[in-house]
């Protein structure tokens, strides 16, 4: 955190480490600038180069990251910005951040490839928006300062708004506006909550802990303020404020309606990024802010959150069932899937948290790929209605293979990535109940080595688990209609050679008409990395699990502390508890 701690004479490597995260943000921005001033023809290639450069840098960062020490924030760097207000551009990444940054970097080139032929107008603006979006997303994951975080968090909205409103489908304007206003309204409340914590911190006695009593927006400092020096009711309000923004972003059950609309209207790459990374900003926010800031309140309200998740899982799943628009179906499936993700967070134990963070990555991979596939289909047929198309396996075998593969990943088939995370989320939920110990579930007086403390339990897991059945139902019905069955193509697409004719369709651009029936090499290139990742993370998730161990253990330790010591303001033992809390956390802070 303190730049003084770095070596007095930084060599090239440490200088690189210092600026690594900054570069991860700046490289896409720089390329955005280049794209803005390059001719339309070269915009695509430049953008691809930009995303690849960012990807390369990410690989370097991943290689230099010390995974054994995943809980510690690495590559830390502070750039003073508004010192009088305690605001700085401070960056740092633990393993959760690194993995999400890696996901972002992976999806970058894929999205550029996916929009290669789909975008024919205002190409430069498109790719500029896209690169800026990427920079902002990386910024969110690496921010260690609330204001910097918030700026990046909100800045993702603007390029996304541009992408949706300019290159979307027919209702794009409405969708873009809804998306913007909905998420913006939520996150403004989040900002209010975060600033409230900063305000409380500024009002603390100086010297109580590092950074108390002065205006600062450092996440590490404010986390101590919020988790140790706020009463339960204060924490609850802060939690509510945080969830207002993050739950909309996730999206949790009652505040999800922007998602299907935006997804259906967004261009393919926009959907991929939206599902792949943008939704993860919400879950990441919950992991990074809601839980560590308000552990007591989160624990207290975990059943409520879990209930919302479960409603989302079943409700979203059932709605998927009656969709006719393939993309909308996938969009609603995100509501259901992210329900699992947050459910894992609400379990507040190692299995749940591990599963949830893995879910963030896995959902990005598999749902992102599904959106890509739907997009490729749409590029060829200009419809996404299951009434108009069917049996595409006969026409597009490669596409169909990928489709089935990613649907299976999404369904949570063991051996593919979705299962690991889904299972861990369910297991975490199942374990997390105090009642195991008290004998409510027939286990009185016996050792229950697999149980953890918590407020959820098998019923939550059972109901959530039935979402797995529903998921199989709607996704397989979709596959049965679109991929399998007798070949059915829209009216304007008649015959076996429909693909190489120029139809009178209003959206049909010259380039699109030349697309072959099945996937091109470019499209396969976009899909293959995702498929490989799905398979590898499904069979061999051990590296990810061990990488995430640090942060997850830390969070669970935080929760355990909160469990044992009631928040200040609780009757009796008030001061003693506060003392104890400070004591408990001092060594941890020092080690940072």
């Amino acid at each position, binding site marked *: 955190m303190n730049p003084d701690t770095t070596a007095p004479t930084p060599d090239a490597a440490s200088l690189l480490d210092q600026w690594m995260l900054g570069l991860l943000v700046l490289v896409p921005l720089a390329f955005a600038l280049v794209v803005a001033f390059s001719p339309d023809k070269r915009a695509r290639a430049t953008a691809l180069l930009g995303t690849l450069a960012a990807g390369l840098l990410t690989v370097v960062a991943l290689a230099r990251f010390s995974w054994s020490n995943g809980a510690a924030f690495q590559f830390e760097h502070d750039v003073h910005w508004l010192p009088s207000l305690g605001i700085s551009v401070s960056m740092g990444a633990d393993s959760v951040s690194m993995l999400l940054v890696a996901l972002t970097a992976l999806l970058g080139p894929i999205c550029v490839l996916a929009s290669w032929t789909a975008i024919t107008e205002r190409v430069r603006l498109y790719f500029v928006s896209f690169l800026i979006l990427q920079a902002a997303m990386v910024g969110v994951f690496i921010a260690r300062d609330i204001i910097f975080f918030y700026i990046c968090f909100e800045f993702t909205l603007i390029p996304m708004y541009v992408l949706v409103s300019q290159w979307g489908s027919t209702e794009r304007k409405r969708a873009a506006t809804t998306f913007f206003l909905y998420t913006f309204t939520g996150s403004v409340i989040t900002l209010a909550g975060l600033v409230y914590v900063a305000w409380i911190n500024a009002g603390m006695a100086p010297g109580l802990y590092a950074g108390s009593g002065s205006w600062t927006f450092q996440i590490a400092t404010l986390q101590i303020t919020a988790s140790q020096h706020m009463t339960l009711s204060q924490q609850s309000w802060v939690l509510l404020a945080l969830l207002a923004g993050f739950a909309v972003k996730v999206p949790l059950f*009652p505040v999800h309606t922007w998602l299907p609309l935006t997804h259906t209207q967004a261009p393919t790459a926009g959907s991929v990024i939206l599902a792949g990374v943008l939704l993860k900003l919400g879950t990441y926010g919950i992991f990074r802010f809601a839980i560590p800031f308000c552990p007591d309140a989160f624990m207290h309200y975990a059943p409520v959150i879990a209930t919302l998740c479960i409603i989302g899982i079943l409700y979203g799943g059932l709605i998927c069932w009656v969709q006719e628009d393939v993309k909308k179906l996938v969009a609603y499936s995100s509501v259901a899937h992210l329900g699992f993700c947050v459910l894992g967070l609400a379990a507040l134990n190692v299995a749940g948290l591990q599963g949830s963070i893995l879910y963030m990555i896995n959902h990005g991979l598999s749902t992102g790929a599904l959106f890509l596939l739907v997009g490729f289909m749409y590029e060829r047929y200009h419809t996404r209605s299951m009434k108009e198309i069917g049996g595409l396996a006969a026409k597009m075998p490669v596409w169909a293979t990928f489709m089935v593969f990613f649907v299976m990943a999404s369904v949570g088939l063991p051996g593919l990535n979705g299962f690991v995370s889904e299972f861990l989320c369910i297991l975490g939920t199942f374990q997390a109940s105090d009642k195991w110990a008290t004998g409510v*579930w027939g*286990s009185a007086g016996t050792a229950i080595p697999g149980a953890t403390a918590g407020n959820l339990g098998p019923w939550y897991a059972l109901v959530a688990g039935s979402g797995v*059945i529903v998921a*199989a139902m709607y996704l*397989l019905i979709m596959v049965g209609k679109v991929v399998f069955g007798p*070949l059915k193509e829209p009216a304007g697409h008649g015959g076996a050679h429909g693909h190489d004719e120029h139809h009178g369709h209003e959206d049909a651009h010259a380039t699109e008409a030349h697309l072959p029936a099945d996937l091109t090499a470019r499209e396969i290139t976009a899909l293959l990395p995702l498929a490989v990742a799905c398979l590898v993370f499904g069979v061999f998730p051990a590296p990810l699990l061990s990488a995430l161990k640090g942060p997850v253990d830390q969070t669970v330790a935080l929760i355990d502390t909160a469990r044992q010591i009631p928040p200040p303001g609780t009757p009796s033992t008030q001061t003693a508890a506060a003392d104890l809390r400070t004591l408990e956390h001092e060594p941890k802070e020092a080690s940072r």
Partner: protein
Amino acid sequence: MTIFSSLSMLAATAAPKPMSPILSGPPEALLVLALPILGVILCTLCAIMRVRTRMPAFLTVGCLAAAFAITVGLYLKSGPAPVITSGFEWINLSWGDSAGENSPFHQFIANFSLYLDALTVLWMLFVTGLATLIALYASEYMSGDVGTGYCRFFAAFNLFVFSMSCLVMGDNMLMLFLGWEGVGLCSYLLIGYFYKKPSAVEAAKKAFILNRIGDLGLLMGICLTYVHFGSIEYRDIFAQAQPYIDAAKAGRYSEIPAIVQLIPVLLAVGAFGKSAQLPLYVWLPDAMEGPTPVSALIHAATMVTAGVYLVARMYPLFLLSEIALPLVGWVGALTALFAATIGMAQFDIKRIMAYSTVSQLGYMFAGLGVLTSTGAAFHVVTHAFFKALLFLSCGAIMHGFAGQLDLRKLSGLRRMKGWGIVSLGMLVGCLNLAGFPFTSGFFSKDMLIGEAFVTPGTAPIGWILLLTAGLTAYYTFRVFFRVIVGPVHYEPGDELHSAHEEHAHGDSHNEHAHGDSHNEHAHVEDDHQHHDHGHGGHFHPHAPGWAINTVLLTLSVLSLAASGLYFVPTGVHGGAVPAMVDRSSAAYQSPFAHHAIPEGAGDGGHEGPDHAAETVPSYVPTSIAMEDPHAVEHPHENAGTFLGWDPHAVLFYVSGAVGFIGIFVAYVLHYAGRTTAATARADALLPMLGPIPRWAQHKWYVDEFYNLVVRVPLLALAHTFHLIDKLLVDGLVRMFGAIPRWLGTLIRPTQSGELHGYAAGMATGIAVLLFIVFMLTLR
């Protein structure tokens, strides 16, 4: 909260992680998994390189044969104790302090490792062996699809073998689940192999979704197991369960927590789904939409026995529950009867075989439920051979007659040239299935039924099974007497027309065999149509080639030879299979079974377990008394009898007689005096039974019932949710959005758009502000 932590601490100290000395297994076991995967990769490469030969089939046969060879090697090596071959970490978590200071140490370990004991090897032997044979069969059978779906078929085939191997060989429940879902996927892919056919797609979907319902039960069972035992590795579970097993031995079920008793029930739900038991059986008959080799391998011989495997594998846990085994037994028995009644009324021979599979699976479950895991395992093995044989024979017929499977349109195959081996295969299969004396099916079935009468309280199950045995013999030989023997007659199936253009659909068969359109009149018309084709000289059935014949012959021999397993090795009652089962976790020596009593021993009830304990590791439960603690002391007093006789001795004759009766009825009704393919004596009798045959033919309207009770309400709910989402949830949001909009309309007129208006506003504003200052500074 302190209660919890202290309790957990107690748990950590009281029950330290039991580290049973487990030998590490032979590393080549991993090859059994790797070879099918190699097959998948090779087939995929073939697909990418657009190979238009039968190369993928031979690659598959090669890989699977190698896997089989390794399995045989494993069998030869296998000792009495289970061994574990470690692969790599799959899903491993750990948390808490290993020192146990703050919170106890927890682990969740699901390695990609293999647990090899006799049960595993037994299952793997017939899985890989049959898979090899059936792959060989399929290389010819699917040859019509070379260049189109051939690679896809064999890739999925290999993937299936891989998944099944994971299921059987995995060393923890999550590995089992991996295989469990994996075979589900392959089943989905292979049922939907003819993806252009809506019925195939529908059937595939149905299979996957219904399986998933069972899978949820299994998943919950796994979670509960983990929560209670802190591990999902078999060895740990069995070790941890030992105290409960001791308690159960003493009949003190009250000492076993309710959640432990719940685990096997949940697992059973999973098993019912995968093994097509009531109420989740409906997918299996529909699954016959897949190519016949698939039906033979997946939906008859191997995958559907996964449920039996699960119960057998977790048998120690099942013995802990007072309800789990009776549940399994009764569900099995009822399924056996129920499916048999449906099978009797079907006309599609493949579908008859499907219902007979459901029925036989019911037998196996019933066997598990009446405490004879050995009998169940034996039946699994014999059933795998003879049912695969039957299916493959059906497939050969289907292949030869362009998809014709209606037993009213085929007759006298025996007398046709080139169909001898098929007829022989059919005969052998039918004899086995009907439980003809001294066939393998006879022995295995007898073991089950006999044990049902031996075990106290399960005699009704035995009676049901006995009745079902008769029904089975009837419907089995109904097929035989109508199709194989009798006057020569044949009509091609509906694939004749498409055969020239789309040979890809080598054996996609007619849907007419089921559904509402199926009534006698429609068939008479159909008959005429097909007669024209038959006589027009367009259609010649093509007899099976060398690959199919070889496989059929091999299987015929094997399924007959399987009865030898009952006698060899001598000295072990029940033969090789029970010997293997006894060395595994499924081992269970019923204190009532007479074969558990060594000859000449006085108090066999005590001798049995001791004797077994010499050969099996100590933690494997060898003997558990059932409900009555009395039983331990006086086993014979409580052992059931068959109408007062020793069940095993008497049933030898009784079940043989029942089989004969069934065959005789079939002979009378379907062969004697039959001159044409379509009409038999049975048809004249049908009207006497009223609507019952029709109901049975329509599968007792179970599908319709499920549709009405489950699917329709769910769909209605989905539509309601969709509406709620659009109107209520989104509507509320839009309402919030509308409030500012409404406020805006209120002040909207002030924005005239005219420059002067804004300027006047500014001026007024300044004046007002100044006036306020003026008033404030007034002295």
